């Protein structure tokens, strides 16, 4: 094999490096390799956030070899999932819907969670807020019962009924 750089001498040095989260093989002759080493370019390694995200998003390599998957493309902004892997940034709000099945495991790895538990814009609806509150109260009820704090449990139950009534209306 000829050296990728000078394309004249035989490639005797084989290097693996990561660029943009992708593995890249370099095949060089001794002279070119040394020259590149001197410039520091040779070892330029990509260890930035997009790069690390890229490695998080990639599925573990299957032992059966790569199976070709259809390209996922956001209909709104045109970003592909591969494009996201490269730049580490999503293109628009719709990307979250398009890539949902792939994003959920990624979010779990980053945050240890996949569901938002914080502020909701008031426009998005008061109902969601009530449901959130209900979810929290049900957990509290469970724990109160477990601890045999029946008086507290009764209070929580009343509050749940009240909120459920609100949603029904």
């Amino acid at each position, binding site marked *: 094999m000829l050296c990728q750089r000078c394309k004249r001498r035989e490639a005797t040095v084989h290097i693996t490096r990561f660029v943009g989260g992708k593995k890249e093989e370099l095949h060089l002759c001794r002279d070119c390799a040394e020259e590149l080493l001197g410039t520091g370019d040779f070892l330029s390694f990509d260890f930035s956030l997009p790069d690390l995200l890229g490695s998080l998003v990639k599925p573990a390599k299957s032992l059966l070899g790569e199976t070709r998957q259809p390209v996922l493309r956001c209909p709104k902004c045109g970003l592909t999932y591969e494009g996201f892997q490269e730049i580490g*940034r999503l293109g628009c709000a719709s990307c979250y819907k398009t890539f949902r099945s792939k994003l959920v495991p990624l979010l779990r790895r*980053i945050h240890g*969670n*996949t569901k938002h538990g914080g502020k909701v814009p008031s426009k998005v609806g008061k109902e969601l807020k009530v449901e959130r509150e209900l979810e929290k109260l049900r957990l509290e009820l469970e724990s109160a019962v477990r601890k045999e704090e029946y008086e507290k449990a009764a209070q929580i139950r009343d509050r749940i009924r009240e909120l459920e009534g609100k949603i029904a209306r």
Partner: protein
Amino acid sequence: MRVEDISLEWIKGIGPKSNIALSSRIRLARNLRDYPFPSVAKRKDLEGVVEKVKGVLEQDPYFKGFSLFMLESLSKVERETLVEKHLISPEHANGGARKAGAVLIEHEGVLSVMINEEDHLRIQCFLGGLQLGEVWRIIDRFDSILEKYVDYAFDEEFGYLTACPTNVGTGLRASVMLHLPGLVMTKKIGKVVEELSKIGLTVRGIYGEGTEALGNLFQLSNQVTLGPSEEEIIDKLEKIALRVIEEEELSRKQLFKVKGIRLEDSLWRAYGILKNARIMSSKEAMELLSQVRMGVDMGILPSIDKRKFNELLISIRPAHLQLSAKRELAPEERDKMRADLLRESF
């Protein structure tokens, strides 16, 4: 308002524990539903985002005390000044002009918004001391008023949608700027950083590259933005920050016990250099200011207002020196001007 007139509230040094916790900051990442995110958006879309914000500013009297700056209308030194004040990121200062980047700044110096950085809006709120609860109250109100006029990219499952999945959910990054010379000098800082990372918090040096924390200034912040509520994130960070401050205070006492007069001597020497040097690099100034600040906190050196230290942290930096000189300065000129400024201050 001109860039040189921008003052920051936290600089005053008012707030709980403000001798060690210089500032409390919260940043909210927000995007507009109907525009592509900045990384893929065309300039025209991003100009649309700016127009949208301008429209909101005119609609609500709440926004009367704010000024909007387009980055392309600012000089390089002015943009750098905003970076040194932590009002915009270095990336925004460099690439923002091409992408219709802008910054909205409140005259009180508490709230600001980066427009068209990684996300359409990066709302920031700073106060002095450790008071994230109050910072949250202020920024939450700003966000809720803004939200009446714009449609945020929001999803019931994932929360506020951001360009990078590391910010999705609350879009909230809270941080506390801490001065930790005691933990550095007792070499406890490594363990502190390591342990905090295990509970989902990040500690990094604010100035300096890599692991070096120039001036012993560290930023403690949350990593997780999806799952817990804003209040839970803030509460956790505040409690941990208090614990770190406690350990810092303890370390200073231990240092004094072990080193005694030798510690006093080195702090007085640092003070002497600040008061007498004729040329001073940024790095040396940061180190000496850190020592003198600790000496004042410990009652070893004469009392000096916290505000002076906070002001100097920013005013000795290159763009600020050049802005006040009203011309570009070569590095040697800056070192001289910095030393002059420090001598006048002490």
